């Protein structure tokens, strides 16, 4: 598994992206991350809920209870307009960061 401290700083963006695609709930998000990365990166649930709290406090996402499924009510998250704007900004920022890091990481053997 990949070192998670490098990814950690971008967890907010990863989760915002997944919620932007459609409204999702906790387990769905952690499963989707494992699925898309082919299990190369798995998010710890504890971290996931911390991110939810943080994003909700910043009003980048909001939550609502879905219909009753197996066992109980799922808590879904949807992205806010502010969240979408924030995500767009982080995408630009990431592009620039990537270019800078690539300057030093590429072409070395």
């Amino acid at each position, binding site marked *: 598994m990949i070192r998670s401290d490098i990814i950690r700083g971008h967890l907010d963006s990863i989760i915002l992206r997944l919620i932007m695609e459609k409204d999702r*709930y*906790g*387990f769905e998000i*952690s*499963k989707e991350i494992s699925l898309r990365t082919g299990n190369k990166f*798995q998010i*710890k*649930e*504890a*971290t996931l*809920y*911390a991110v939810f*709290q*943080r994003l909700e*406090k910043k009003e980048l996402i909001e939550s609502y209870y879905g219909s009753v*499924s*197996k*066992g*109980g*009510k*799922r*808590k879904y998250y949807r992205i806010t307009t502010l969240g979408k704007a924030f995500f767009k900004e982080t995408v630009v920022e990431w592009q620039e960061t990537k270019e800078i890091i690539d300057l030093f990481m590429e072409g070395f053997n």
Partner: protein
Amino acid sequence: MNRLTQHVSDLFKDVPESEQKASIMQEVLQNLEEKVWDLMEQGKAEEDAINKAIVEFGDIEDLTKELGVNKSAKPGKSNTKNNTKLNLEYSIWGSVLIIALFVFMNFYYSSHVIWFVYPTFAVLWWPLTMYFRWMKVKGESKN
């Protein structure tokens, strides 16, 4: 599934009670249950599935930081600040009384020699120390 409920309440035992805590505990439990069902659908025994879900949940420290520590740290800090202010006031009043006593003794019993200055300097260390301690805590709480 009782083990999951138990585990979740263990995880959150240090978090101060609040509405937010209750709703997160419910959310965590709900999602853990879904994970267990999902693992069981993939052919795991219930026991294994629960173990795996619990292990993969990870360290709750980040989450408690978002939840509880912010709230409990602030009153704690202002408490120390109030204490140092109280200490400072106490030391000022205390030293003024002691110095006044020395001044009285000096002029009442031996007014031909001015000696009260020496104990006064010794006593002044007390409020000075408290003053700097107060300044230090004040500076820290600003950051």
